[in-house]
């Protein structure tokens, strides 16, 4: 496989094709008859999937540096380039998005019956934006993709969402936009500072990273500027309140894309930019404590709030907040294990939460309600759906053997050395996460069959099975055999730790020196 990919020059064109193909398809969708729209979208998604999967083999796990690098001048006057590249972190995110795409299109097959052209065109635009964020190796380019994403998402929520969609869409855009404004200032400032010192004004990631030490003095506010943008996106408590609304009101496709990819952009940003650029400040004792503390608060808080949600989607949205707290905790845990765990959580949260949203979407399609109290005892009429939901729920709960556990375990064990008490706090969530998901599962799929309206709910059809099956398989696969993924992300995690290591205060070592009382 690797040889074949090398023979066809895969690494020279793949990223461009992945980015460009959806954009090229948009005019097609707009020109062709309406009923072709979803077919075009699906075709593009499948092509992207097939092409994208090659990354799995073409990517060299042994090489921790950026791979598939492209550097073409774009706005020369400003030092902006069309610079792409991927490492172990981005390759996983790219794979996740190419895998999600066909599922998203397929899940919308019937549920979207109005303005189909626009819907699928926006989905494709969203696709390019998402991929762009993860492969951009130029801060200008990154910012462009980062913001551009808002538009398709805005219209997806605002146009195909449920009743309160306008409010949710507006909230989503305003939060994210306002959050990332300071980042723009920070990026330009960095370029200017570095440019003044080195004579090269460039937005290239590598260039800025190599000279980030020049920014020591302005590190604090620069970090805050970046962190604010990413914190809103993740979202970290207390910047999270847009998420439940956006998730709840968005159409299934939107919710899934939001959960699987968009939220990861925030954590990706921390791993790629905010911390490596300003490790001295970001990983200082007090800031670390604040970030890890917020992460843990978010983990527990969101789990508790999720427990009392009357709306299924809202519940899952809060569970996302909770899960992404683990990623933040993992990043600030600052060990290879915890960072690996953070990446794992990013991946597995995508699978589990994506699947949950798909299933809720299928329910919604059938009953046009997401209220938990409208359901009950569905396992009798829809056993397959119940099975899928239960498996997914347990994967989300973090049952070992399924995907959720691997990431959470690694994050917690890795971060424990630095923040034992915070990790203890975060670990309590094993109870709460089980509480909210099992309670919801019970009230939807188990218990007495109370609502006769639910009698007509059919079980999953073949299309829906096809949407869920890859995700469920992925859950089991990652749960039992995450090695191949861990090996691919290890380089990135190791590199990251090497980068920030000099700034870490007194790294605890495994084996005995951790607490007084050990020998």
């Amino acid at each position: 496989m690797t040889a074949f990919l090398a023979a066809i020059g895969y690494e020279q064109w793949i990223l461009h094709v992945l980015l460009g193909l959806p954009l090229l398809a948009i005019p097609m969708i707009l020109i062709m008859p309406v009923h072709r729209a979803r077919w075009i979208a699906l075709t593009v998604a499948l092509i992207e999937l097939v092409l994208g999967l090659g990354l799995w083999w073409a990517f060299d796990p042994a090489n921790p540096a950026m791979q598939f690098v492209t550097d073409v001048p774009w706005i020369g006057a400003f030092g902006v380039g069309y610079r792409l590249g991927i490492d172990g972190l981005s390759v996983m995110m790219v794979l996740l998005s190419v895998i999600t795409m066909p599922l998203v299109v397929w899940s919308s097959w019937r549920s979207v019956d109005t303005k189909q052209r626009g819907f699928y065109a926006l989905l494709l635009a969203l696709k390019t934006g998402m991929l762009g964020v993860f492969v951009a190796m130029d801060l200008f380019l990154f910012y462009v993709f980062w913001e551009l994403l808002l538009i398709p998402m805005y219209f997806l929520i605002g146009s195909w969402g449920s009743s309160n969609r306008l409010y949710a869409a507006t909230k989503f855009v305003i939060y994210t936009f306002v959050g990332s404004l300071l980042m723009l200032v920070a990026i330009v400032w960095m370029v200017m500072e570095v440019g003044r010192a080195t004579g090269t004004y460039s937005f290239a990631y590598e260039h800025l990273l190599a000279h980030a030490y020049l920014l020591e003095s302005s590190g604090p506010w620069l970090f805050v500027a970046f962190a604010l943008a990413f914190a809103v996106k993740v979202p970290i408590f207390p910047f999270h309140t847009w998420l439940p609304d956006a998730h709840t009101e968005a159409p299934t496709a939107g919710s899934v894309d939001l959960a699987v990819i968009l939220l990861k952009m925030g954590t990706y940003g921390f791993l790629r930019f905010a911390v490596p650029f300003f490790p001295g400040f970001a990983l200082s004792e007090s800031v670390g404590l604040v970030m890890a503390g917020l992460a843990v608060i978010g983990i527990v808080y969101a789990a508790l709030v999720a427990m009392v949600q009357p709306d299924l989607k809202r519940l899952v949205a809060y569970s996302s907040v909770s899960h992404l707290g683990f990623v933040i905790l993992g990043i600030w845990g600052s060990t290879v294990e915890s960072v690996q765990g953070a990446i794992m959580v990013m991946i597995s949260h995508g699978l589990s939460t994506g699947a949950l949203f798909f299933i809720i979407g299928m329910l919604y399609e059938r009953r046009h309600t997401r209220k938990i109290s409208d359901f009950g005892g569905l396992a009798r009429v829809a056993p397959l759906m119940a099975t899928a939901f239960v498996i997914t729920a347990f994967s989300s709960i973090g049952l070992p053997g399924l995907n959720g556990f691997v990431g959470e375990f690694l994050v917690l064990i890795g971060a424990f050395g630095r923040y034992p008490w915070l990790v203890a706090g975060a670990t309590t969530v094993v109870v709460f996460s089980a509480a909210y998901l099992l309670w919801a599962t019970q009230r939807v799929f188990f218990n007495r069959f109370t609502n006769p309206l639910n009698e007509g709910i059919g079980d999953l059809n073949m299309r829906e099975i096809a949407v869920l099956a890859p995700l469920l398989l992925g859950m089991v696969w990652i749960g039992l055999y995450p090695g191949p993924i861990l090996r691919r992300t290890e380089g990135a995690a190791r590199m990251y730790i090497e980068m920030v290591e000099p700034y870490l205060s007194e790294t605890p070592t495994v084996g005995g020196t951790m607490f007084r009382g050990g020998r």
Partner: protein
Amino acid sequence: MTSLVWLTILFPLLGAVINGAIAIRRPEAKGLVSLVGVGALLGSFAVAIGIFLEVLAGDGTATRVLLWQWMPVTERLSIDLTLQVDRLSTVMLLVITGVGSLIHLFSVGYMKSDPGYARYFAYLNLFVAFMLVLVLGASLPVSFIGWEGVGLCSYLLIGFWYEVDANSDAGKKAFLANRIGDFGVLMAMFLLWWHVGTLDYDGLARQAPEVLAYAGAPVTLIALLLFLGCTGKSAQIPLFTWLPDAMAGPTPVSALIHAATMVTAGVFLVVRTGVIFSLAPVAMEVVAITGALTAFFAATIALRQNDIKKVLAYSTVSQLGYMFLAVGTGAWAAGIFHLVTHAFFKALLFLGSGSVIHAMHHAQHAAHAHGDAQDMRLMGGLRRAMPWTFVLMGIATLAIAGVPPLAGFWSKDEILAAAFVRGGGNTIYLVAWGLGLLAALMTAFYMARLMAMTFFGRFRGGDTLEPHLHEAPAVMTGPLVVLGLLSIVGGVLNLPGFAGGSHYLAHWLEPVTDATLPYLDRLEMPHGMTELLLVGGAITIALVGLALGMWTTLRRPVLTPAATPAATGLARVLEGKYFIDELYQKVFVGPTVWFSRRVLWQGIDQFLVDRMGVGGTARVAKGLGWLGSRLQNGHVALYLTLFVAGVVLLMRAVIGGAP
């Protein structure tokens, strides 16, 4: 054979997958389901016997079978899916596959008419697979897969009849209680890894003593956290309340999961990580006293229960307490011994009660009557209709009550003796011994009461039902007979010296348990007079308890539920199970939900962050804009005034500013 140990897991796993597929596609294919379900277990059992023979021939060193690398994260944290076959896991392997096979067989009859037959066997097979992972895992994380997996299956099986809200509730409760325990296990793993640098049982046993100071705070903390996990899984104080509720599941499930295997996982874990515990004497005391207290309190509750399965459930909790008392004294083998014998007689009791319930249920069904098929007050005199069940349950009752020479006597006696010996130097153990003794008395009492209410006297379920009462089919009684035999002779595994034995099991397990020896005083079992006194006392207590139980129950007619007056005083407390459930509900669950909804969600999220924070900012901005807009009132004079004011300020700034 040993290297094929993964087959024991694979068979039930495949069984689960196949049965699961059948459950979805053709749930009515019950024959196939039985074949797959029971066959998988029998296959496992066969492999297990093969392994056992090999281990028997071996010298006691553990064999590790690497399946694949599970989490190869870094050099220092690389967790492999490795199975470990040693004498301890072999014992467990045999019990699980053996008793499991019997219970699967029994289920074929018991669940015959249930529409969820295939689903049931899928779950049950899955459970066995996970249970085997638990006991065979060579490291804490691998065991943890099984540990949580059995919790999952327990959840699914308790809520098997999910359309009854209470059943779903019970399943959820079980899982949550387990998760509270799992918090402990997870934390213990974190601490262990950071201190010792490994999570392998082997590595822990070797390296933990080098790193962790004897009786130091870390090791005590780790041991206590591990034990927290055990209290969850094995239904000990304070996390025992889920087990009685778990009886909502089908009775064979109660027998397999909530009596014979899963709930004993905690005991197994303590033995597995014995080195850690032996390094932490305080933790050992906590384990022992918790076990003793649980044994005692659960027994008191069992005294006043009328639901046949509830009695057995509390009895299980109580017996598990004994096991923890055993391992808490460092009598590892005694704990495992009791685990094994308990698996025999408690499974028998549950299956027997299942047989009774089955009969009651069918009778009610045949007579078109409705009633509680599990309420002993509606039973009575069943020995006539169900002689086999009666005899076998009688054997089990004697066994659990501790009447020699049945299995339960030997194991329980061993535990009490160990506690007594430790009690010589440590009052806590003496108290534990006393509690254990009292619990033994009560055990005999409530078991006699159970037998009396169920099988003696006259039938109280109504005349219409009586003719329809029948003994269970052979597929159900067959396993009962086997278990009955095992309950009788199970004691030979570990006969003490005075009975002509040589503590065979204890010696056999020494390769596993000896690692703890340097940190634990050797248990010098009493000999001679003391031993005889202890044994005699135990026998007396058992007999007195049995007699008392029989007598008090049969002394006057048992009242039917309708005729039973409301209990008062202590009886009410016992009947209400000390109101622990209500207490937890009021103190933990209710406030948490209230806090989450009112304070966190509506208070912080919706009000503080959204309405005041974000909305407030927006409103302030809009308000300022509105003010500015009002100021723009259309009057040129105002505009000019603003202008001139601007001029004045600007000129002041320019002229006053330093160039």
